[in-house]
Structure formats: structure tokens, C-alpha cells
């Protein structure tokens, strides 16, 4: 990989606006968000409830489209892509982790982790091997064949992390991943994210807990649909998206 490719941002948002129409009125959830995130950064997005954190994450994760503004992921502009191309992008480049885990019920941990590979067309044998490996790596070797309702919250979140990682995405997005967990599990999951970052993954976490934010190397604060501050190790980050 060239030096240029290394320094090229994985995420590049330029003047992103996201409006919702609620009861006939236009409501602006994001009002001109500009930011870039480089490869192997560990970023926390913080801010009060309703400030637009999830909306930003959903756009980053290609689950949602901005009303206006340009978004590039890994050098590709998303606005021109068809629905199925977005699905493929989510499948191959993004690992999404949700607050409420979002595992398929009535489906074992192993099968949940296999699912993204199934959609990617990985042959069954390889799928099984890779899913098993991912779950073992995350400490769930004893829970391969358990269904979500047989797992604790912490274990479910680990399964969903394994599922997010299994297609080797370029970007891990976690929207309040510890929001539904107790302190002990929160600490374990955060340690896991630090590990993943240390292994070279790019990680973006939404949180409103300061101690969670403290794990990140860079904190972006939202307020009322705008970026209020963007600091890395205490210093202001210049967004280079405009050049």
C-alpha cells in the first residue's frame, strides 16, 4: 500500500445535511457536518441525546443517505451508488455494532456470525471455519451453538462484534455498544475495542459516557446537529475535507 493510500481518509464527510420530515415539518438532524477519519484511528463521537450522533453513524455505515453533502468511504463516493451496491459496501467494508446487539433470534451464535459471509458468497465450509475462529478469538468457544436468548448481554455483544469483524471490514462502527451493559462487561468490551484498534482496525464509537470516550484517541463532540469540537490527544483537529 502506498504512502498516499495510507494517509487517505477512510471516511470523508463534506457538509452533510440530514433532514427528516416529521408531521409535515422539516426537521434538520444534521446541519453541515464535515469530518474525515484516517485509517487506524480510534474515534469517539460524543454529545447529548438527540444531537445527531446516531444519524451520523448511520450515514457513515451506509445505512442511511444524507439529504445533501458528499460522503466518501475508502475513496468511493456513496451518493452515486444503488441500493444493492450500498448493501455490498456494508457487507464488505463496514462492521456495525449496535447498542441492542441486533442478533437474529432463533439463530445460534455461530450462524449469526456466518451471516455476513453468507451474503458475501463465502462457501459453507470456509464460513463455518472463519466464524468459529472469530468466536474463539473473542472468548466464546463454549457458546458457539447457543441462541441469543441463552447468552448474557456481554456475550451477545461479543457475538455481534465477531459478526462485525468476520468479513474483515475497513471500518468498525459502534453506536453506544456498552449502553445496555453493566460496568464489568462495559470494561471488557472497551478493552476489546482497544485490542482491535491495536491490531490495526479503524474504530468509531458513539457514546455519552466520558470514561468510554477516554479510551479513544480522538473525541468529536456533537451539539444540535453540528460538530461542536474535534480534539485528538487534547489538540484541535483540522478537518481537511475542504481542500
Amino acid at each position, binding site marked *: 500500500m502506498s504512502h498516499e493510500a495510507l494517509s487517505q481518509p477512510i471516511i470523508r464527510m463534506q457538509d452533510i445535511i440530514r433532514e427528516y420530515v416529521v408531521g409535515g415539518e422539516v426537521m434538520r438532524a444534521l446541519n453541515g457536518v464535515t469530518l474525515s477519519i484516517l485509517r487506524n484511528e480510534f474515534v469517539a463521537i460524543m454529545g447529548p441525546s438527540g444531537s445527531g450522533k446516531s444519524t451520523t453513524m*448511520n450515514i457513515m*455505515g451506509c*445505512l*442511511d443517505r444524507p439529504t445533501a453533502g458528499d460522503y466518501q468511504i475508502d475513496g468511493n463516493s456513496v451518493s452515486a451508488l444503488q*441500493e*444493492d451496491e450500498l*448493501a*455490498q459496501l*456494508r*457487507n*464488505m467494508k463496514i462492521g*456495525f455494532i*449496535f447498542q441492542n446487539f*441486533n*442478533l*437474529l*433470534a*432463533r*439463530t445460534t451464535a455461530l450462524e449469526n456470525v456466518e*451471516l*455476513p459471509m*453468507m*451474503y*458475501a*458468497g463465502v462457501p459453507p465450509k470456509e464460513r463455518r471455519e472463519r466464524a468459529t475462529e472469530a468466536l474463539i478469538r473473542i472468548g466464546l468457544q463454549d457458546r458457539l451453538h447457543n441462541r441469543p436468548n441463552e447468552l448474557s448481554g456481554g456475550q451477545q455483544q461479543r457475538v455481534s462484534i465477531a*459478526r462485525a469483524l468476520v*468479513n474483515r471490514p475497513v471500518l468498525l462502527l459502534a453506536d453506544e455498544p456498552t449502553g445496555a451493559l453493566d460496568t464489568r462487561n462495559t470494561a471488557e468490551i472497551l478493552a476489546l475495542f482497544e485490542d482491535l484498534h491495536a491490531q490495526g482496525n479503524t474504530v468509531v464509537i458513539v457514546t455519552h459516557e466520558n470514561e468510554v470516550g477516554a479510551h479513544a484517541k480522538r473525541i468529536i463532540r456533537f451539539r444540535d446537529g453540528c460538530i461542536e469540537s474535534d480534539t485528538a490527544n487534547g489538540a484541535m483537529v483540522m478537518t481537511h475535507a475542504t481542500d
Partner: protein
Amino acid sequence: MPLTEIIRSAFRSIRANRMRALLTMLGVIVGVASVIALSAVGQASTDSVTQQVEALGSNLLTIMPGSASTSGVSLGAGSATTLVYSDAAAITANDPNVAQVAPLVQRSVQIVYGNSNTSTQLQGTTANYPLVKPTPVAQGRFFLPQEVTANAQVAVLGSQTAQTLFGFQSAVGQTIDLNGVPYTVIGVLAPEGSNGFQNLDDRVMIPITTAMNELTGSDVLNSIDVSATSQQDMALAQQEITSTLRNLHQLGPGEASDFRIMNQATILSTLQSVTQEMTDLLTGVAAISLVVGGIGIMNIMLVSVTERTREIGIRKAIGAKRSVIMAQFLVESVVLSVGGGLIGVVLGGGGAAIAGIVLHKSGLVSLSAVLLSVGFAIVIGVVFGVYPARKASALHPIEALRYE
């Protein structure tokens, strides 16, 4: 995503809701079962009618009074009085391709023997009737040509008629009373069943001369049964009879014939078209219930899409394309309809078998009915599955994930 995986996941979600799946399939089950059972019963009755008509003999022609311009074949004919005894004699005399001629007079009569009496069908005919239509005699004999010439008061009874009048006693040699005239029973026919029009076991046969003198008082015939010299000569025989009778009845070139000639093929096709129409009608009604079953599937699939909105959101979030979601729900509704179809085949086959036993017919389930109804069930599953599946695949991932 390969089809096997999609089918596996369809089975998984159907299994999670067994009772509901069964109720959903019920409409298709009933539809397919009735299509199969009804078409089997229809087929069985068509077969038996065919068999009976074929048993009449393949070189048999029946001449009936009435106008040939009447469309269709009225099997209850007999009111017209255009056929007379001398017509039969003329055919015998003039037509070389005709082998045997048996004129027939029919009337319903009251038979009395001692304290028993029964009303039955009287047939007056000539001694060669058994040569035209097989009429096996079980006891005694059929009447002879000289008995016909002599106006003999002799009678041959159908097996059931004999049973009714004489029970297990021998009928031959006894004297019965027809409309006040005594007849000696000279024979009892072997059981034959029905020929599709009448019960051959319930009749009394007497010489036609006697019948005309004692009972009808005229020389008007109900029909003339004729056998051609061979099956190849059928058409020739029919032509000869037509010209003989037209001459005899003095019909001009423009006039319609006052009789009609039916052969086995025309009788068969008439009867078959009637039973076929019945079968089609019943099958059509059953097909409607299949469509109703399809609507039931659509209904449940729509509920299922709503219930599984979150699941759809999750699948989309991790990269399921529209087509994959679509296929998942479509396969599910097809699995339901095909499952219902297969259960319906089993139940319908069972129903046909039972009906076959009850009706004493080989209620054969036809492969075409099975393929047709299962094929139709698949089509129903696809057609009624498309809308819910499209609805599922069109869901926006975020909205689906936010769905409570």
C-alpha cells in the same frame, strides 16, 4: 446467497411457527385435495361410462325415431312415432352390410306372480336380439324365431326382476301375468349391471309380435338395434340404412330424416363430454378454493413481514441485497403452498381411494391432476408471495431497525 441456504432459513422460520404454518396451508390443502379427489372421481365415472358403452359392441348401430336436425343426442327419445316394424324388415331385406336387425318396443309394465308384483321395463324384440347385443341367459333360454312368428306368450326375465318375483325359487316354467295376460317364463338373464342408460337386470323380454298385439296395439318401434357385418362396414351400413329408410318414408332430397342413427362412437363422445363437463366444473370450483388458499398465504406472509421487520433490518444492515430478502420471503410462501399442496395430494388421494371403494370404481388419482394442482399451488405461492416479499425487500434498513 445460494438457494439451499434460503430454503433452509425458510424452513427454520416456518418451523418456529408450526401451528400458524399449518393453518396457513389449510386453504391450499383443501383446494389441492378437492381438485385431486374430484378429478379422480370424475375420471372414474368417465371410465365406467366408457366401459359400459364399449360393452355394447363395436359394430352396433342404434336407429332412433326423431329428427336428425335436433342438435345433441336426446337419450330419452321415443315420443316420435316415425319408426315402424316394417322398417326393420326392409333393412334386413335390402342392406347387405347389415348383419342382424333387432327391432325394439319398450314399455313399462306391471308383472304379477302370485302375491308378488313389480313394475319393470318391458322389451319386445326378435329372437336375434342376443346376436346384436350380448344378452347372456343364466337359466332356461331366449325365445326362438318361431315363437316370435307365433305370437307366443313367453317371457325372459332380468336377473333382478326374477329375484324380486321368485326369490330363490326357480322362475323358469312359472306363469307370470303382464297387464292381465299370462306368460310362461322360459329364461332368466345373467346379471349384467347397468349399460349407462338403464339397469339391464331389471326388465322383462317378450317376442315383439306379442308385445305389439297384446300391449302396445301398434307397430311403432322405440328403436332398432343393428349390427354391421364388421366394424369396417359401419359407415357403409349406416349409408344403406339411411337410404333405405328415406326411400321407405318417402323423404325428398331437401327433407330432413325423421330418424337418426347412432353408433357407439357418437354415444361415447356425447356421454364423455357430459361427464367431462361435470369434472371440469367441479375441478374449477376446487381451483377457486386454491386461489382462496393463496390469499390466506398472502395474508399470513404480510403479517410475517411486519413481525419480522427488525430481522429484515438486521439482514440488510449486514449486507443482504434486496433480491436476497425478496427470495427469502418468496421461498417461504412457496414452501407453504407446496407443503400444503403435498399434504393436499395425500389427503385428496386418500379421499379418492375411499370414494373409489364406495362407488366400486377404481378411483385412480391421475398424475396429471397431481402435477397440475401442485403446479398451480406453486404458482399461487409465487403470485401471492410476491407482494409481501416486495414489501419486505423495500424496507429501509434504518426504519426497519428502529421498528419496535
